[in-house]
């Protein structure tokens, strides 16, 4: 199997014909028009960026390209020929493959099996596995990306970043499967990678360009501009234009995405009001558990404190421990002078503590339940008179909050899983607000997977909450976010608080300052 062969195949197609072309693609979901006549051209040997806010139709478009969604109207051409893609397999035969945003690996299979899954080729003969061949096939892919993962390691024993590498190795197998130069779709591949890994990935993307076309989707616009040749922008299910990356600025892209000139004050620093409280609302003294020890922390009412740290710094566990979701071994925590019961989540809720988990889909929301029931799940009292639920009370309350946070949903009885990520997150946040008794909010990567528009709204909401006296602990998605939002930053390292630095507007530390403390 050699790249030369592939390159020859590439050469056999006239260079003018686009590798992939989409004309007037339409897809309706009940109550939502996800795609409304999208046009897209992917040239050969090009890296095309795809940008758009959440809900702009990116995911639906990508799914249509790999045969997971059947469009209601419109055409797809591959190398000039009209095709119907009915399944992932159909797409793979046409040379189209995709790395999914949410990891699509089978946890209890080996890395090698995951890489060849569905296209075992020489790895399986007459239904029988040939493990040595399997190992070789996987190693071949790993060699391409210079990874040293053991192909026969079980996937669930690998780190998250390693798993992402396996995912990329998996999609690179398209090269071997298709007779044609492949089209490889990367949906948010960098959202959880570290810089070194991101560099490896970009090297691969550039290598792929030699013989393939790449569609690259990321909500980090600077990355998109960095690695892509051209960027197509989607808005509300329509193509609104494209940008040559040469010399383009993220702000230009952003304007196209949201359709107007967005405020430059991304983090709404203008809204920031320094907390005047003397006494801290939350005090943590000597808190210890398996993964962290002797943590001291104060958070004042109206203050946003960001906790930063690298892998294994234990900051997630501190956050969960404060909510009673992880057991602690020692330490004392008080909220407004009263001892906080850490024995379970229920006690924390009752004391006015709220938690927004990082894994929204698994831990944050109950997918099939309605927006209304999700919103009132934690604060049942808000919809009850005495022990009884009053449906009209709930309806009024929920509708007000839908309006207040401009949550885009057909109605309050819609299942939350049908909403876009940003709107889901707003519902999850609203859950802690409907009770009017929130004092401490623990936000674990609250903007993960959200686009700029949605992020901005979440930031604004955080500011408003802080201005109304809520104490906030933020585990930010990036250092910029931490610096942009926080009044104070706590750096954790190795399960301990390494340092603490003020972060008032006008006196912000740089990311480099933080990184020094983190390692």
């Amino acid at each position: 199997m050699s790249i030369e062969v592939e390159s020859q195949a590439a050469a056999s197609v006239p260079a003018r014909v686009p590798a992939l072309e989409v004309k007037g693609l339409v897809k309706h979901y009940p109550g939502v028009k996800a795609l409304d006549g999208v046009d897209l051209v992917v040239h050969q040997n090009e890296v095309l960026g795809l940008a758009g806010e959440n809900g702009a139709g990116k995911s639906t478009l990508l799914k249509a390209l790999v045969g997971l969604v059947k469009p209601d109207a419109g055409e797809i051409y591959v190398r000039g020929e009209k095709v119907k893609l009915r399944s992932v397999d159909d797409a793979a035969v046409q040379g189209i493959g995709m790395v999914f945003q949410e990891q699509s690996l089978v946890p209890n299979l080996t890395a090698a099996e995951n890489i060849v899954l569905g296209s075992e080729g020489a790895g399986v003969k007459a239904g029988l596995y040939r493990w040595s061949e399997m190992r070789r096939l996987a190693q071949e892919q790993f060699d391409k990306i210079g990874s040293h993962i053991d192909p026969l390691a079980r996937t669930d024993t690998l780190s998250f970043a390693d798993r992402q590498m396996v995912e990329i190795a998996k999609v690179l197998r398209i090269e071997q499967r298709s007779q044609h130069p492949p089209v490889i779709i990367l949906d948010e591949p960098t959202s959880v990678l570290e810089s070194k890994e991101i560099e490896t990935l970009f090297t691969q993307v550039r290598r792929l360009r030699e013989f393939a076309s790449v569609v690259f989707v990321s909500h980090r616009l600077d990355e998109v501009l960095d690695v892509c040749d051209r960027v197509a922008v989607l808005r509300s299910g329509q193509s609104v234009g494209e940008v040559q990356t040469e010399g383009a600025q993220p702000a230009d892209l952003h304007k196209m995405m949201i359709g107007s000139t967005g405020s430059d004050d991304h983090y709404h620093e203008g809204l920031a009001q320094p907390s005047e409280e003397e006494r801290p609302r939350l005090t943590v003294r000597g808190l210890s558990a398996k993964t962290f020890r002797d943590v001291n922390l104060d958070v004042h009412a109206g203050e946003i404190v960001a906790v930063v740290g690298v892998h294994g710094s234990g900051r997630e566990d501190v956050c969960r421990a404060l909510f009673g979701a992880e057991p602690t071994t020692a330490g004392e925590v008080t909220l407004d002078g009263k001892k906080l019961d850490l024995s379970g989540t229920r006690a924390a809720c009752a004391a006015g503590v709220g938690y927004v988990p990082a894994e929204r889909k698994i831990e944050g929301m109950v997918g099939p339940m309605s927006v209304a029931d999700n919103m009132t799940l934690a604060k049942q009292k808000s919809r009850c008179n005495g022990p009884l639920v009053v449906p009209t009370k709930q309806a009024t309350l929920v509708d007000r909050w839908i309006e207040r946070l401009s949550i885009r949903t057909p109605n309050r009885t819609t299942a939350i899983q049908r909403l876009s990520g940003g709107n889901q997150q707003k519902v999850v946040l609203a859950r802690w607000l409907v009770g009017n008794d929130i004092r401490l909010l623990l936000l674990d990567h609250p903007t993960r997977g959200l686009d700029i528009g949605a992020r901005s709204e979440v930031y604004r909401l955080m500011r408003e909450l802080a201005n109304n006296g809520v104490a906030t602990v933020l585990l930010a998605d990036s250092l910029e976010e931490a610096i942009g939002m926080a009044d104070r930053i706590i750096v954790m390292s190795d399960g301990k608080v390494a340092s603490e630095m003020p972060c008032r507007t006008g006196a912000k530390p740089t990311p480099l300052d933080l990184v020094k403390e983190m390692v």
Partner: protein
Amino acid sequence: MTSPVVARPAAEPTVVKGGPSLSARVTSFMPVIALVVLLAALTIADPGFFTQRSLTAASMTAAPLIVMAVGATLVVLCGGIDLSIAAMASLSTVFLALWLPSLGALSTPAVIAAAAAFGAVQGVLHVVLRIPSFIVTLGGMSVFSAIALVVSDAGTVPVTDNSTLNWLTLYLGGIVPMSVVVALLVVTGIWVIMRFTPIQSWITATGYSESAARLAGSPVDYVKIGAFCVSGACAGLAAVMLVSRNFSGNPSMADNLLLPAVAAIVVGGTAITGGHGSVWRSVAGALVVTLLRVGLPIVGVPSAWEQILYGAIIVAAVALTLDRSKVLIIK
């Protein structure tokens, strides 16, 4: 403390109209449709089946099954399963028969309380030790059977004075068996409590996504223990009904009702994976299962064909009633 009010909600909320679509409504009535189709089929097979006396008898037969299935539905809604209900009911028949002479009318609440306590113990074991409910209740099944065998000395315990239970065998208005009335009261009671308190939300959230429910501060553990407790109590009540009509308690009396009860839950359209379903669905399911159990032989289907038809129809009924939009992966 400072007022944590964030922002005043908009004064005039735009109330968005909307409800379940037509197809969703039809799907939710599927258990009833299946019931009607089956009743029609049996009537075609034997017109004598569709008489008031015959239907009264069938509903009386269904009463204990309804009660057991409804109790276990709560556990299923929480995402678990209760395999101990039948053995629990058998054990309860023995207790009831043993206690009747000394406790008299009090023995009924005593038995239900005991069964509820046994159920709660299973719930505690499940929650505290984190053992899958399938295993806990499978173990419970054998333990309850063993206790029943020992306390009854492996024999039938006759009930000589049936007077305190006799009311269960009477008919309301001469038509509706009292046991059916009691069963429907229990179902209504459970439904009302769930519908008009946060319990419904908690159970549903626990069934769909336990970790999300827990991180929203729902009392997941108590809800689960409560579900097992109610499931036990319902098995106890079913036992009271069985004793009232059989005049005895027996350590294996209800053992064969386990699979019909679970079948009733699934035929009703409650998802075995949890979250989606309701107690009323299980009532319809229990009626379908009862019609199959007693209807087929009575209209003259030979026993071998009866089993084949039972198997085929019950699968077809589930195919009809299950709302697949709520359950993504069918295992």
